[in-house]
């Protein structure tokens, strides 16, 4: 989360609502270790990353929903070979993200 701290600080100061997604667990091959983080503002600005670009799009959708609902939850992404269009990691691993509003 260190890398996105300045952006989080900027949003907090501006009163911009945002959600933070952090990698909390990785099974098998995963591109980023626990602690990797990305954040999405209510305006749709995105900073940081949680994978090699495989799941960031889906995380934005989840994060915007979480900014609205105020929920906090674990979201899991894994490899899926039965649907070429499903969101997943091409490296074959599974990552668990914790996504929550930046309200703390």
């Amino acid at each position, binding site marked *: *989360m*260190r890398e996105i*701290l300045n952006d*989080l*600080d900027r949003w*907090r100061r501006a009163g911009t609502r945002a959600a933070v997604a*952090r990698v*909390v*667990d990785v099974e098998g091959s995963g591109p980023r*270790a*626990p*602690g990797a983080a990305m954040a999405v503002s209510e305006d749709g600005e995105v900073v940081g990353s949680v994978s090699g670009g495989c799941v960031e799009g889906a995380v934005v959708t989840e994060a915007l929903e979480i900014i609205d609902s105020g929920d*906090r*939850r*674990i979201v899991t992404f894994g490899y899926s070979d039965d649907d070429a269009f499903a969101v997943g990691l091409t490296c074959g691993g599974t990552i*668990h993200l*914790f996504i*929550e509003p*930046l309200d*703390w």
Partner: protein
Amino acid sequence: MTIFDELQQAIRAEEPVALATVVDGANVGAKLLVRPDEDPGGTLGDPDLDRVVARDVLGELAAGTSGVRHYGEHGEARERSVSVFVETFAAPPQLLVFGAVDFTGALVRLGKVLGYRTTVCDAREVFATKARFPFADEVVVDWPHRLLERVGADLGPRDAVCVLTHDPKFDVPAVIAALETDVGYLGAMGSRRTTEDRNRRLRGEGVTDQQLERLMAPIGLDLGARTPEETAVSILAEIIAARTDKPAPSLKDADGSIH
């Protein structure tokens, strides 16, 4: 101050800090901020859980690891009703570069990219200036071995010392002082002839062959690096390989021309 403010303040001050967050179970989202030698901030919702997690987090902080730990509602071990994500923010590792030479600027710049706190040290004040090394966190005008007398005890396995002066007057005492520390990586720049000459002088000062094993000289991997930037890549790659204990081809173990 909020937990976020406290976390940010500690990270900016480069003080070790960890953030524990409940990610599953009761009180999802509850947070505990843990720092060595200070009372934790915030709460996970149960005083016993706070106490146990704070203790465990200090261990993770020392190891620099982040991950999920499981507990009972009151911190019981071997129960899994509460999952806590512990994210540690260790102070950045140190890169000490001795010698204010051409290669130093590139090494410091790329070292910053890899997250090191960088210090340039050279006894010659005309060369050791902040203007010449804008990317260095600190520029010290002093003999390197005297700097190590002050900070050597703080060096550990994550840190690195690179001796780039290739003047035996500075290098020999610097290497001897660095060998006294627990620094994880120690390398010295120079041609094969400079390296042989330095090793001979070091032995003359009582350095053993076993101690010389630790000294990576000529410094860097055998990449055929030529420019200061390429050389910096070869040095930092050797530092990574030393940390991960992977068999990368070091110049030290090769024969012939170094570039």
